[in-house]
């Protein structure tokens, strides 16, 4: 079942046409990966889906509903959660407060408690660091916190922007395992990565983006095997 359909999306970033008529779709339970070089428009697409940016053209339909005119805070309520590039945890607040903010829209206290248990069981390190200032966590831990915070809103669709960026290799593998685990628990994932090889190896399907347009699409394995992708993104 298709949960998100992006059609002919065009977004400007100031005077720059960052995204020029992009269309793609995401089915329930999939990991879909958007790969492409810096400046290809990947982050812009995610920000537009989550409502931080407004498109100039095109539609974003989520379970058949148009998201284009909704505010970011409403889009979270609809079940789309966005883990931004660079993690953007709230510094000066404890790990626990960061997670509580992730559950900002959950009205039911017992539900919030359950979500805490779930996120803590997935990321035991966060429980250990519960009362610590989030800014004192390592990069990998901050990424886990950012993902944990996004999961606190009980998303149906999780948008991940460069989750492996700037992390030590050991954490990179861990983050990709976490993404697979999230999928196995039934959450659909849209993953943006510069680490194309890793991203495509866990993705069900992928799209290759360059200069604001989609150049190729296919299953993760197809794209991994494609000579063009290998040449451009996987170092031959």
């Amino acid at each position, binding site marked *: 079942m298709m949960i998100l359909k992006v059609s002919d999306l065009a977004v400007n970033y100031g005077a720059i046409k960052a995204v020029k008529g992009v269309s793609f779709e995401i089915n329930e339970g999939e990991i879909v990966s958007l790969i492409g070089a810096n400046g290809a428009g990947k982050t812009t697409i995610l920000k537009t889906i989550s409502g931080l940016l407004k498109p100039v053209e095109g539609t974003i339909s989520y379970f058949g509903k148009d998201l284009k005119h909704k505010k970011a805070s409403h889009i979270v309520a609809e079940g789309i959660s966005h883990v931004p590039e660079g993690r953007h*945890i709230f510094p000066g607040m404890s790990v626990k407060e960061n997670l509580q*903010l992730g559950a900002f829209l959950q009205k039911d206290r017992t539900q919030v408690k359950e979500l805490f248990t779930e996120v803590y069981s997935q990321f035991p390190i966060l429980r250990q660091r519960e009362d610590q200032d989030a800014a004192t966590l390592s990069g990998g831990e901050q990424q886990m916190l950012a993902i944990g915070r996004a999961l606190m809103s009980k998303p149906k669709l999780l948008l991940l922007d460069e989750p492996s960026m700037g992390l030590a290799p050991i954490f990179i593998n861990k983050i990709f395992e976490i993404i697979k685990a999230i999928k196995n628990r039934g959450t659909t994932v849209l993953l943006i990565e510069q680490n194309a090889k890793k991203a495509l190896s866990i993705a069900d399907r992928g799209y290759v983006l360059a200069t604001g347009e989609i150049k190729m699409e296919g299953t993760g394995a197809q794209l991994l095997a494609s000579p063009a992708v290998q040449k451009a993104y996987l170092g031959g």
Partner: protein
Amino acid sequence: MQTFFQQVINGLSLGSIYALLALGYTMVYGIIKLINFAHGDIYMLGAFWGYYVINVWHFNFIAALLSAMVICGLSGVIIEYFAYRPLRHSPRITALITAIGVSFFLENGMAYLFGSNARDFPQIVKQVNYNIGGVRISNIQIQILATACILMLLLQLIIRYTKMGRAMRAVSVDNDAAQLVGINPNLTISFTFALGSALAGAAGVMIGLYYNSIDPLMGMTPGIKAFVAAVVGGIGSVPGASLGGFLIGLLETLVQSVGLSAYKDAVVYVVLIVILLILPTGIFGKNVKEKV
């Protein structure tokens, strides 16, 4: 030594007024990076509201205080909605100039409607002086100090432990990330204005009671001094604003007590200059590096 303690008591009373005002400056600055120069005029509105309800409706102190907080909170929200919100994405200087405009509007609007003469604030609390070891302290001073401390404590609790308080902190540190967890920034900013303006309203009623005299321009000087207090404490920092307020109040009173009354305002501005030179982020200010 007795005189010194006497001045400390006087300074703390005055300082608690500045502290309440400084909190509004610092919270608004923290969340939208605007120095709300109309803040002192909200305090004036609070004093006039207190004057009106005590004279006309015979409110007691608590009722006058609470109703002034509600009215001023609402005024803050309305001002933000009509004057500042349309400029959210404009350069900061535009909003700053607008704040000065709002300040003039409130001052002159009140002068036009109610006259610019100073009027006597009704004395609902009968002044009783206590003598403790030669230091004279009035029940009004105690009331001001206690009320200010209770309000500051409540504010701290709201910011620390409530959902809206967490939302305020989240929007202050990272507006985009706050939206991504489902926080509505506009609502949160309105809430911040409501809180800050309510505190200013409380300060207005209390200063009326303390100084007995109110007029439409009464907010100018205390407004600027409270702004200095917020800068001294570290603009954006809530504990800093409280501390800065008390420090400025003490300083002003002590300067007066050594016979330099004529310079009491000048000294406060000298402090501002010195702080900006040697400790530009204030006592509790964070040294935020600009991201490139």
